[in-house]
């Protein structure tokens, strides 16, 4: 059976051009026209960063509208000490360490997971935690560990896999939990972010949790927020909605991504997450410790916690204190103002999250912005 994907229309260049005209019109009207500084919209989702970059959307926005990237990449905000913990577990004999492809090349003081592979660690790339569970079932003589990375979109998939492992009586499967949740980190970042005018909210996190997760942006932080999808027209219409709000002095939470996002989320996903995990403090690379921004397995499932099983713990070692990712992420400084830029911090030897992601603000500046 073949069909034209219904969201193809959200890729239509004509529609995008029309939305561009709308955005220009709003940007050239009062009061936006007379602002001294450009309107700054922050997106907090790695996939938004990717889409904006991939479609070249920054090039077609007016001069007085600026897009910046927040800490939306779960890979980039994984600390070096967590990665080192992962590498130590992966390097144990009789362990098969399963991870998403995204994590394979992120560097730490011990190198990357891919480097560990060349030194004999059995690391397997997977596209789903279910694959890791299947590997455990097929390899009873090995301990299989799944590197659980990701935000609220991915968390329920790990939680379901944990329950499935229990149901099937699988005893050689465990997870190294590095999951993080968005709201506390966003609060920590944005409550002092005077330079950020509005927020483009993650579309797929919202599809799972419900858009109401981001109520606090409008209600507590008093900033306009729109939940956006990932096709070019999705992002452009969300930007138009944000500009409309700013022009009218409003700060509401709206949903642009209506085909997939509602105020209430996926109840099954939220329920399984709650059954399996509880909130915990977490370290964010470049931002430090943020309370209640991570997850731990509940005591009923603690036997599937790899750190406990192997007694290999996160050292929580502090990272380079000269790292200014926090200020970059808050839009307070631009990448070129960071003293570590270029000499000490580069894509091949990144210090903070902004450089780890190939589309992070600092990585992008390093590639395209430097003269």
């Amino acid at each position: 059976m073949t069909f034209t994907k219904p969201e193809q229309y959200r890729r239509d260049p004509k529609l995008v051009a029309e939305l561009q005209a709308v955005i220009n019109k709003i940007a050239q009207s009062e009061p936006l026209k007379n602002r001294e500084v450009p309107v700054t919209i922050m997106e907090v989702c790695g996939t938004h960063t990717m889409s904006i970059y991939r479609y070249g959307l920054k090039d077609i926005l007016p001069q007085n509208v600026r897009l910046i990237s927040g800490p939306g990449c779960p890979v980039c905000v994984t600390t070096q000490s967590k990665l080192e913990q992962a590498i130590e577990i992966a390097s144990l004999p009789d362990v098969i360490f399963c991870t998403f492809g995204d994590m394979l090349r992120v560097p730490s003081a011990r190198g990357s997971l891919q480097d560990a592979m060349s030194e004999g660690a059995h690391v397997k790339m997977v596209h789903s935690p279910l694959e890791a569970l299947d590997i455990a079932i097929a390899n009873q003589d090995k301990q299989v560990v799944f590197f659980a990375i990701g935000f609220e979109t991915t968390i329920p998939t790990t939680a379901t896999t944990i329950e499935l492992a229990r149901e099937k009586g699988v005893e050689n499967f465990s997870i190294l939990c590095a999951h993080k949740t968005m709201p506390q980190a966003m609060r920590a970042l944005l409550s002092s972010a005077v330079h950020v005018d509005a927020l483009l909210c993650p579309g797929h996190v919202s599809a799972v949790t419900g858009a109401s997760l981001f109520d606090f942006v409008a209600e507590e932080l008093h900033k306009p927020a729109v939940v956006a999808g990932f096709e070019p027209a999705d992002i452009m219409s969300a930007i138009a909605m944000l500009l409309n709000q700013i022009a009218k002095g409003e700060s509401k939470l709206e949903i642009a991504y209506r085909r997939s996002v509602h105020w209430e989320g996926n109840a099954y996903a939220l329920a399984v997450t709650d059954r399996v995990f509880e909130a915990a403090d977490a370290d964010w690379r470049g931002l430090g410790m943020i309370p209640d921004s991570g997850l731990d397995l509940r005591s009923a499932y603690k036997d599937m916690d790899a750190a406990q099983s192997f007694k290999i713990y996160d050292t929580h070692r502090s990272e380079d204190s000269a790292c200014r990712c926090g200020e970059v992420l808050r839009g307070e400084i631009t990448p070129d103002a960071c003293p570590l830029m270029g000499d000490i911090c580069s894509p091949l030897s990144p210090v903070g999250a902004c450089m780890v992601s190939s589309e992070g603000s600092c990585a992008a500046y390093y590639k395209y912005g430097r003269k």
Partner: protein
Amino acid sequence: MTIKDNDKILLAHGSGGRLYHQLVEDVFLPHFQNPMLADLGDSAICPFVGDKLAMTTDSFVVQPLFFPGGNIGELAVCGTVNDLAMSGARPLYLSVGMIIEAGFAVSDLLRIVSAMAEKAAQAGVMIVTGDTKVVGAGQCDGIYINTAGVGVVEPDRDLSKRKMQVGDMIIVSGTLADHGIAVMAARENLALDPPIKSDAAPLNTLAEALLLAAPGIKVMRDPTRGGVATTLNEWAQGSDLGILLNEEAIPVAPEVASACELLGLDPLYVANEGKLLAVVPKEESEAALKALLAHPLGKNAAIIGSMTGEHSGKVYLSTPYGGLRMVDMLTGEQLPRIC
């Protein structure tokens, strides 16, 4: 006593004695039939007409050995034939060196060898000499193959990226990323339905057709590892010129586009084994395109961009939305992403 389909390769098959000769007689000679090989001399004595020889070599260690649309044997022949063809040479003779793991199934070896024979025949080249070693179980991944090839260079041909100029057009001979996705799908056990097939093919006749239609061609290459993006970056780097691609013109089969989307991969960086990329003068570009489209291996050929005087040393792409993005050089292989 002949080698049978359900036999396994033994260490003795590599040690030059009776079993080694059995292997040559029963497996290699029947498939790679030609008088030079049949002589089984220490060297193959091969006639050619010309002044300059092009020579190349490549080793093949792909995993898995068998994937939709082909196997390591196909790649071993096409890879070397194509390297010669892309330099403007007429490929003539190949050597084949194999390192086989003890315990390897003869039936698998036969599949590989007959694929090699088929591609060699398609390319019109002869496999004239070879060598086989067998290593202990666990000492290699099934089979490693090296091929070396020689060809004759036409006297007036001089293909080089130094000749590129502003205004030259960039042409690709067909859809991108077919091979890389086929192998990735097989390697990762991705059950794609329908399966995507590798495009491995010998490009020498296609290259000849192109050279005939566009004698002013500057440079060409088959964009294998790292895909079109890597080849274009290698051409642009160090030069005064930049490259601008038109995203809407880049041909990608719909199922490959879907697979790339599912895996979070960019088709520009995925390997091709049966496509060529060429830089031709603007005035010859229409003729070049026609010649490619008329050839069985050149369906879906397209002009995808041009050489510019801007952003020297870099490759950019214009999106359908009026934006620009840089197509950077990758460090290492592109990895699927989920986050």
